[in-house]
């Protein structure tokens, strides 16, 4: 078996219920060997349960989970050849850093001399050498985090499982660890399954992202795909900061109609009268010229750009991003347009993305 085949992870129709509460429903997910996959979603979406099932700490109610082609439903956590980094780090408080890192090797009967050599090597990689004789409580949060990583790394497992490993670190350290993790993944070349609620972490580190919500996989794709072609309203609203603007309207007269925004469909059009939602990312709004009007409500300069809230007719608010020099003043009215190829259209009833229609803005807006 090649290294890549060893690291393949497959969920087939996996369901997990705790009593009457369903945590994960009908999950189908195929992760390639060596891939960095994030499970992303708000708390309670089933991502941690999914990871714990892969680790063997929870058992699926139905369905099969396989690692490297072997069904592991009935396999004990220690026999799955996976390593896990816990959100709480879960370092053994009564053991030194060296003992913590050596523990997985000890449990697998690796001889003492080799154990010590491997621990030294891992400690060097993670810059922990000076800390080896210390106890976990004598370490800072960032150091504890690295020890937890070291305990996972020391064994070269098929799959690394990481459960929100950065959430207890401060912002600066988190950014630093993100790049270290990317580096680490590239170096060990193993499958990483990474649970997070932070889209920035998922977007920056992952090869592919599995967006989950209420126990259901919403979309599984590259960061580019989930950002540029969100499969449904949940993914559209969840990915991106500031969030995508969602305008409710309906299909009429061969286009999308809204009190302010009117767009024509090119190509196959959704049936007339259908309720639709238009998705518009803040950076896809063009300012200064365009068919639509708006009044600036609030401007938040961030230094390198400005985030502004625009009031448009129909009671909607539009969040937009503009560069730092753009002339935006609260209370003023301005004209705006859209980057047509980057619009998203969703069915308001099902929430699903409608792929067919390419839209052109129509100048004949009501409030022009």
């Amino acid at each position, binding site marked *: 078996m090649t290294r890549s085949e060893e690291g393949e992870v497959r969920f087939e129709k996996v369901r997990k219920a705790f009593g009457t509460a369903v945590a994960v429903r009908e999950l189908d997910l195929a992760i390639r060997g060596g891939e960095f996959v994030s499970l992303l979603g708000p708390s309670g979406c089933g991502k941690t349960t999914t990871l714990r099932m892969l*680790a*063997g*700490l929870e058992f699926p109610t139905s369905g099969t989970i396989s690692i490297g082609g072997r069904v592991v439903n009935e396999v*004990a*956590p*220690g*026999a799955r050849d*996976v*390593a*896990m980094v*816990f*959100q*709480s*780090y*879960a*370092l*053994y*408080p*009564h053991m030194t850093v060296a003992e913590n890192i050596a*523990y*997985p090797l000890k*449990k*697998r009967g690796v001889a003492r001399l080799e154990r010590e050599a491997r621990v030294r090597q891992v400690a060097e990689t993670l810059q922990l050498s000076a800390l080896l004789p210390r*106890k*976990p*409580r*004598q370490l800072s*949060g960032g150091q*504890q985090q690295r020890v937890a990583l070291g*305990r996972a790394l020391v064994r070269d497992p098929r799959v690394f*499982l990481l459960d929100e490993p950065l*959430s*207890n670190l401060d912002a600066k350290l988190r950014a630093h660890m993100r790049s270290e993790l990317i580096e680490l993944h590239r170096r060990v070349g193993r499958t990483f399954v990474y649970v997070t609620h932070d889209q920035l972490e998922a977007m920056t580190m992952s090869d592919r992202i599995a967006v989950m919500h209420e126990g259901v996989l919403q979309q599984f794709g590259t960061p580019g795909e989930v950002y540029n072609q969100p499969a449904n309203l949940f993914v559209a609203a969840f990915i991106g900061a500031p969030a995508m603007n969602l305008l409710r309207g309906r299909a009429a007269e061969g286009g999308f109609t809204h009190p302010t925004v009117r767009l024509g469909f090119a190509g196959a059009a959704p049936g007339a009268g259908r309720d639709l939602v238009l998705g518009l990312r803040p950076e896809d709004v063009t300012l200064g010229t365009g068919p639509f009007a708006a009044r600036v409500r609030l401007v938040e300069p961030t230094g390198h750009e400005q985030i502004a809230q625009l009031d448009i007719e129909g009671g909607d608010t539009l969040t937009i991003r503009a560069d730092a020099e753009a002339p935006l003043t609260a209370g003023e009215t301005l004209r705006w347009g859209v980057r047509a190829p980057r619009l998203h259209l969703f069915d308001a009833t099902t929430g699903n993305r409608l792929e067919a229609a390419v839209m052109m803005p129509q100048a004949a807006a009501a409030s022009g």
Partner: protein
Amino acid sequence: MRKLAGRLAFNLFAWTIVLVTAFPLVWMVITSVKPQFELFRIPPTFWPEQITFEHYARLLWDTPFLLYMRNSLVLSTATTLLVVAVATLGAHSLVRFRYRGRERLAQLVLFTYLLPSVVLILPLYLMMVWLGVANSLLSLVIAYTTFALPYALWLLRSFMQGIPDDLENAALVDGATRMGAFFDVILPQALPGIISTSLFTFILSWNEYLYALVLVNTDEARPLTTGVMNMLISAFNIEWSLLMAASVMMSIPLIIIFAFLQKFLTRGFGAGGVKG
């Protein structure tokens, strides 16, 4: 000035309590080294005019005191080991595993505490006879376990609730078996709890009187509590100096154990390693 007066009052209060508590103990030690003729003198002397260890010598050489001492040590140690072993595993099960009736089971365990021990003695005695272990140290070990175990179980349960699940999970993923994870990770974390539970159980068994009185009536199996009473208090006479000497010697093992285990009790309750 006011602060000083406050501190003075507080100290006065504290020392009064210490004095009241400690006086009987001091009196016990003093009485045990006074010669017989000085005991009932009026007015009583505080410091003995003459110090003697004859009572200790008589206890050790002329009475079955050492036999009782051995019985008590065996009894308390065996009870402690049994109770702690069962309670540790039981508490872990109550905290860690989800099964039907878990909470009910934990509450039911405390049910024995609702009954006065006098009520339980007769059924216990009959059970011992039925088991064929009546009138032996083993019968007392079993009897003591029935009342020490529930409390030990609850004490350890609350200790184990403070140990994060993730520690055990990490050990499992790292390749430990359930038992391995228990011994490698849970046990060291629960150690302060295990030590205080042991201490509690040992003291309880060491001082127990009622069960020992009813369940055992041979010197071969009598612990110190009933043995000493039986030996020194008769209808006509109480041998005060011997009784005091016996009391001093009975206290010594507990004092030693306390002195030895105190540092474990106060050490490192705050577990590091786990944040958030």
